[in-house]
């Protein structure tokens, strides 16, 4: 299992951040999105290569009104 915003999702071997986003139907070209894996920010340029291992905790955030 990996945990995306606390929701458990079955882990798949060799999955990258981009795979996780695609699995959630999130358009990776969309602006105002950021991803952290195990509390470390994964830059957009590394989404295609950054592996998301079993038990990884993934945070996917986007822009909302505030402030």
């Amino acid at each position, binding site marked *: 299992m990996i945990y995306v915003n606390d929701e458990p999702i079955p882990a798949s071997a060799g999955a990258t951040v981009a795979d996780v986003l695609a699995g*959630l139907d999130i358009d990776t070209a969309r602006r105002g999105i*950021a991803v952290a894996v195990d509390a470390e*920010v994964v830059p*957009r340029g590394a989404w295609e290569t950054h592996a998301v291992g079993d038990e990884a905790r993934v945070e996917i*955030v986007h822009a*909302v009104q*505030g*402030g």
Partner: protein
Amino acid sequence: MRVGATFSIAGRELGSRLLLGTGGFPRLQTLADAIEASGAELVTVALRRIDPAAQGSLVDVLAAKGVELLPNTAGCFTARDAVRTARLAREAFETDWVKLEVIGDERTLLPDAPELLAAAEELVDEGFVVLPYTTDDPVLARRLEDVGCAAVMPLGSPIGSGMGIANPANLTLIVEQAGVPVILDAGVGTASDATLAMELGCDAVLCASAISRAADPVAMAHAIRHAVAAGVLARGAGRIPRRTYARASTPFEGLPEFAE
């Protein structure tokens, strides 16, 4: 304060002394119209967990308006969480700027001074342009400037309270000593509060609820824009000193004397 049409933060010149918070607007169209009416060039945004179903267009609306984004760390209660949120914001919005908020109390949403200072120091070290939301404590404001913050953003009164500037004396002290821009953040309830902030020497005002939760947000954005401009002009014009007793503006000389 440098009285004039523009001011700058970290070398970035801004033509508008009104910063707009995007929180609380009922519809994106109202937000877009309020941005237009406010003349704001810098607007705040927040980060939250994504809802895959909601393909929101907030960023697109803001991009269409040509405004710069100022991500905040609203909702963070520790330096650690605020720093992590700022790093995510840097990635999401491709900006080093951050409105740093570290809250210490749920009911008042007042800043947590030690956590705020720790987070500010860490983020400055990481190359962020840090604009901290702080209390109206002049000593804390100085400490924040000392660790390298690009501005200080003291509150007038608690976020969303609309109570205006609760301690003008403290705000004056902050303005007097500051070597970085002072932006009044939080507490503005209506236009006159924004004018007072500028008359006291603030460089800019940030408004969210005062505009977004007004009965007519676009009209209030317009009003506060002019209120800020009026305050800047009045500050530059130099107000008369307060006095206890009257000082006649009409001369007594030449007053006709009437027979009994």
